[in-house]
């Protein structure tokens, strides 16, 4: 039996908040920075999404359909493409039409709703699936949560929504001696297959590819295919999960990242016994080898691989609790404008910006956050949320 290589790309961009002063609370109600959001999407479309999509299409055509990948595109990203870069949507429709691309389900807002007991999670997953079906003509069969957050409890909720497969991280503190290169089953719901990210091989591309300090620099398709073959020994599947911004943004085109991806498939076909599959196909081929127990949520983020990047300090917990406390009321009101704002305020990024874990690393912080400090991120978010809560109280 051939081994499986499974590529999954994540696309998400939050709708960033404008600077919302405390004296705007109860008055303005326009929370989002149109200019910044538009220019961010335009820049990413030109440097990353469009050229990367062209490359994937080229590979599908060249390799006669043997080349397959999967995407998870958040609802907020899809909406922003529709407004600011409709050609990105068209390009994905073209990819969808090849039948070689699987679109995954996630929460519409790329939210942390799976960590809230409200039914917001279920609502958002359904809304996202509807959106994907409407745009690309396929109903997602595989689920992946924001930043691959997973626990037994979340697995149960996902299973109850009808999904049979879910992606998460091969976190070492959960796996122990076990390898991420097999399909596992959820301990809570054995009917739910789990595909685990192979961090080392994924990060070789996303993090280390252009790092000149790295002993293996430069990384070539030849070399990578050799590593894959070595990794395959006694294993079944290698899951390479990454942000799509790796191509052209995090690793600029000048690093040769596009050429690397362009030549990788032919090297893999020629020198390894791997085949490209999507998650849906992978779980048809491979049976789960063991149940995986995950009592506390894991994720693919930071050294800790847990949810401490979003809910690791009192600020984040405070904002999170305030946000989900009003969920029943917002749903009851069902006001279109409030719904839209509520959805955007849930993007996990807003909570990430409040993380104090990065505070000592100035470069990393400024790279990942539009704010100068987590404290400013919190103040601005809370000013917006305070305004939102007043509107919810008023009912409009």
């Amino acid at each position, binding site marked *: 039996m051939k081994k499986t290589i499974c590529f999954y790309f994540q696309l998400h961009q939050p709708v960033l908040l404008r600077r919302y002063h*405390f004296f705007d609370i109860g008055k303005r109600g326009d929370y989002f920075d149109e200019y910044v959001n538009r220019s961010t999407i335009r820049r990413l479309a030109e440097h990353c999404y469009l050229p990367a999509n062209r490359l994937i299409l080229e590979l599908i055509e060249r390799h006669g359909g043997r080349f397959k990948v999967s995407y998870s595109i958040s609802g907020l990203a899809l909406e922003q493409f529709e407004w600011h870069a409709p050609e990105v949507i068209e390009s994905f429709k073209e990819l969808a039409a090849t039948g070689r691309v699987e679109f995954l389900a996630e929460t519409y807002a790329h939210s942390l709703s799976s960590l809230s007991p409200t039914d917001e999670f279920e609502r958002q997953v359904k809304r996202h699936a509807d959106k994907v079906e409407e745009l690309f003509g396929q109903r997602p069969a595989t689920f992946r949560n924001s930043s691959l957050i997973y626990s037994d409890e979340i697995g149960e909720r996902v299973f109850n929504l009808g999904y049979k497969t879910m992606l998460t991280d091969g976190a070492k503190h959960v796996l122990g001696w076990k390898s991420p290169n097999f399909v596992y089953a959820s301990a809570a719901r054995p009917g739910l297959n789990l595909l685990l990210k192979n961090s080392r091989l994924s990060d070789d591309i996303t993090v280390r590819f252009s790092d000149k300090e790295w002993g293996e620099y430069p990384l070539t398709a030849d070399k990578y295919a050799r590593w894959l073959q070595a990794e395959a020994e006694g294993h079944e599947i290698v899951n390479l999960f990454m942000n799509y911004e790796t191509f052209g943004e995090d690793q600029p085109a000048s690093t040769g990242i596009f050429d690397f991806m362009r030549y990788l498939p032919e090297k893999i076909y020629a020198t390894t016994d791997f085949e490209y599959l999507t998650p849906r196909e992978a779980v048809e081929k491979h049976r789960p080898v063991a149940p995986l127990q995950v009592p506390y949520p894991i994720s693919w983020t930071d050294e800790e691989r847990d949810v401490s990047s979003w809910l690791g300090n009192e*600020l984040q917990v405070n904002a999170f609790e305030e946000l989900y406390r009003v969920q029943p009321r917002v749903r009851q009101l069902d006001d279109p404008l409030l719904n839209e704002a509520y959805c955007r305020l849930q993007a996990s990024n807003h909570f990430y910006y409040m993380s104090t874990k990065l505070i000592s690393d100035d470069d990393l912080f400024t790279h990942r956050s539009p704010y100068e400090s987590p404290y400013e991120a919190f103040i601005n978010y*809370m000013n917006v949320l305070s305004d939102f809560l007043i509107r919810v109280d008023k009912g409009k």
Partner: protein
Amino acid sequence: MKTKVLMFGWEFPPRISGGLGTASYGLTKGLAKHGVEILFVMPKACGEEDQSAVKIINASEVEMMDSYATREEYWRFVQFIEVGSNLVPYLDPEVFEQEASAAIRDHAGESRVTFRNKFQFSGKYGVNLMEEVARYALVAGTIASQNSFDVIHAHDWLTYEAGIVAKRVSGKPLVVHVHATEFDRSGEGKINQQVYDIERRGMHAADRVIAVSNLTRNIVIKHYGVAPEKVVTVHNAVDFQSYKEVTVERGVPEKVVTFLGRITYQKGPEYFIEAANKVLKHYPNVRFVMAGSGDMLNRAIRRVAQLKIATHFHFTGFLSGDDVQRMFAQSDVYVMPSVSEPFGISPLEAMRSGVPTIISKQSGVSEVLENSIKVDFWDVDAMSDAIYGLLAYPALARVTGKAGLEEVNRLKWENAAEKIKCLYYELIHAEN
């Protein structure tokens, strides 16, 4: 072999008027921990100085030699100028006024300078400060010829001349330490030319210039024309060994937002008032306190009256000693909106009391602090947003207060001293 430093300061605890003595003390203790031996020269020692880390040389007890210092040179240098309180960092006008009037009293009728004598320095910042500075430099020559050492270190402009003379006599490398410049003290356009000239001469004569922040380093390079490779930033630290907890019963139920410092142009009091006005319009349950005095106090009071916020905005006048601690203990937010602050120790004191802080980006201390909210001094909207955030969202005050306390306890003079020790080493070995 131990490195031996001849250090020129102006004051040293317990008799101090401002932060310069505190900084000198902290730094020497840090250096001593790294095995550096220090001869600390000061104009007037009282005998109660802690000599565990340094050996104090009291310039008032040094008999001057006449051989290399001609009287003409001396008189060319000594010109009485009108001394303002801005000449020294961290000095409050009250303190200055007391010292100045005491100096006038002490020196009344004295018109002749005698050489070949011991000179009784006041060691203060009185009206004949320039004369003292010049005499101090002369005594420095004597001290330099009578002691052995590897490097000379001079703190702030008052001692630069002394450092230069000591270098000329001994041939040893000179380090000048810039705690503040004339540009911080007076603002552009009001520069005291004589002080500026002394500062400039000291920086150019020095083999290395230490600046207390990158902000100060840039001023040294830009306004004094010193080669960038010669100027090194070593951030100040803070020593809380003698810190006492104070508990205060709060008199008002409202939250308290505090400004504490000289009410002068440099400290940006007007931005604090404008921010207070914005916050009060939306968050009435708060009181603002402006503690300190200075030449902008009356203007500040007028502005508060004009804005009709006087029932929620209070002036305490000059605070000293334990009152400062008590003020911090009653505060919920501390704001330092300085227009230009070479370093700025007061937010560290507030943080030590667990008070969340907002500091201007135009302060040296903002380069080292992570758990303080930083705003541009002129950005009243951002400042009022930060104040409002700390008042309205208790989680933020708790997190920043706690993280700030931990952070401030990590700032150690040993770390600053280690950098300076390395700098000494380079200089001494470059010479040989």
